[in-house]
């Protein structure tokens, strides 16, 4: 595979649609454990992202992701804006000047994880969106991407797992033991992002 400018743009368009469709779900999850604005913020952020990339010309997917980073940072707010902004900024840095094949994509995701760990001062296994990103990275390391839709199953399993554990960091940690039984909203929003990516890769694989 190779992630092209068009695919990166399409990834963001599909992500926007997913956040729009699932705004209520994310908001509901966030109301259960946080302040209930995650769905609204993500939908608003990705709408702005799609508008921004529609009016810009890009030569390389790294430039698309940089635009995404700057827009999310400015439009999402709260903690999610800086976290996702950092993730896309770091991915962009890794991809810069390179052909974005599976290996580079994995390295980009790893660098996104490093950035988010530092930004959120948290580690993998603390019931945050990092768990989802970590599993996607492992998947890219071990599988050949001939069935990109498998990414969705991998992410789904992680999100399901977040229901069972007590959060120690991130949104869900505010409630301690009350966080058990709820999917972590940040993990859920990362799930939608990778679901969108999987769909783009799937489309490309079947062309």
């Amino acid at each position: 595979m190779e992630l092209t400018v068009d695919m990166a743009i399409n990834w963001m368009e599909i992500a926007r649609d997913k956040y729009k469709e699932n705004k209520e779900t994310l908001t509901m999850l966030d109301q259960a454990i946080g302040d209930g604005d995650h769905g609204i913020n993500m939908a608003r952020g990705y709408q702005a992202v799609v508008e921004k990339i529609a009016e810009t010309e890009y030569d390389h997917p790294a430039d698309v992701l940089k635009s995404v980073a700057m827009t999310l940072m400015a439009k999402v707010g709260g903690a999610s804006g800086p976290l996702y902004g950092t993730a896309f900024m770091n991915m962009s840095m890794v991809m810069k000047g390179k052909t974005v094949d599976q290996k580079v994509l994995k390295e980009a995701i790893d660098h996104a994880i490093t950035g988010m760990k530092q930004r959120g001062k948290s580690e993998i296994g603390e019931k945050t969106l990092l768990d989802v990103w970590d599993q996607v990275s492992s998947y890219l390391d071990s599988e050949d991407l001939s069935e990109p839709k498998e990414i969705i199953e991998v992410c789904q399993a992680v999100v399901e797992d977040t229901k069972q554990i007590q959060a120690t960091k991130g949104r869900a940690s505010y409630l301690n033991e009350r966080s058990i039984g709820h999917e972590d909203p940040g993990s859920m929003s990362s799930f939608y992002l990778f679901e969108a990516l999987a769909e783009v890769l799937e489309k490309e694989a079947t062309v």
Partner: protein
Amino acid sequence: MNGLKKLINHPEQVVEEMIEGILLAHPGRFERIEKTTVLTRKSTVQLNKVGLVSGGGSGHEPAHVGYVGEGMLDAAVFGEVFTSPTPDQILEAIKAVDYGKGVLLIIKNYTGDVMNFEMAQELAEAEGIQVEKVIVADDVAVEDSTFTIGRRGIAGTVLVHRIAGAMAETGATLQEVKEAAEKVINNVRSMGMAISACTVPAAGKPSFQLADDEMEIGIGIHGEPGINRTKIQSSKEVASILVNKILADFNYENSEVAVLINGLGATPEMELYILNKEVQRILTEKNVAIYKTWVGEYMTSLEMSGVSVTLLKLDNQMKELFAQKVNTLTFQE
């Protein structure tokens, strides 16, 4: 307006309209950076000092715009109500007040604020600006909260602005200003309580419910839960609860302190002064000498009714800095 009883026009426009109102009320005091929610200090002379930037969610007025001016901050960044401003806005503030000696960010410890300010710091550093930050976490009520890892930053932040601002005005280096700010942070503690909630305009309903005869001890400035909820008690008893919790955390005995009695938005001055009398009585009994007192609204929470008490242990350097000239909307000394 679905029953929202507030003197506003549009819930989504409150921050923008407030900024416009501030600029009209105080011409000559501030400059607005175009297309941002940043107000900077207007100066007739070319400033040659460390730039000080603070900010956070709106709804805490006079924080932080009331502290922009000579002897305090150089810029205040307005976020949406109770929401951190975004890094792009903070970055504009940093760029505007970098007079060549670097910029200090004064951040209240909330997860969103810390992340957005840190990101702005990295962006500014990438542009070659020297930036340092301090994080204020003065609230002794709870260790972790709805919006923080660690303690929350509340009214004690104002004293950090004051001391760091005075230090910067002397022409001190970025490192010296940061050290002065950190000294305040290490010696300041606060504790608050509320007797009624507040309503974020865009949310449309109160952030929590308190019965008519209840109060909540240790509440946060966004209505985050505190330590416990009890029947309302007298000012004397409330003062004792707040002060004792602070004294249990930090030893102020046999030292000189500055006292800040802060109304949360809807508490009459009469009640603040009554509480001040009780606070000072307790401090005197505990051998704490009061060097300076401020009573009023410094870090509010929209129309929340309640109060916070802040104590700062002073040394000679801080006393000298407190004696310096300050000219902002809230402080003119």
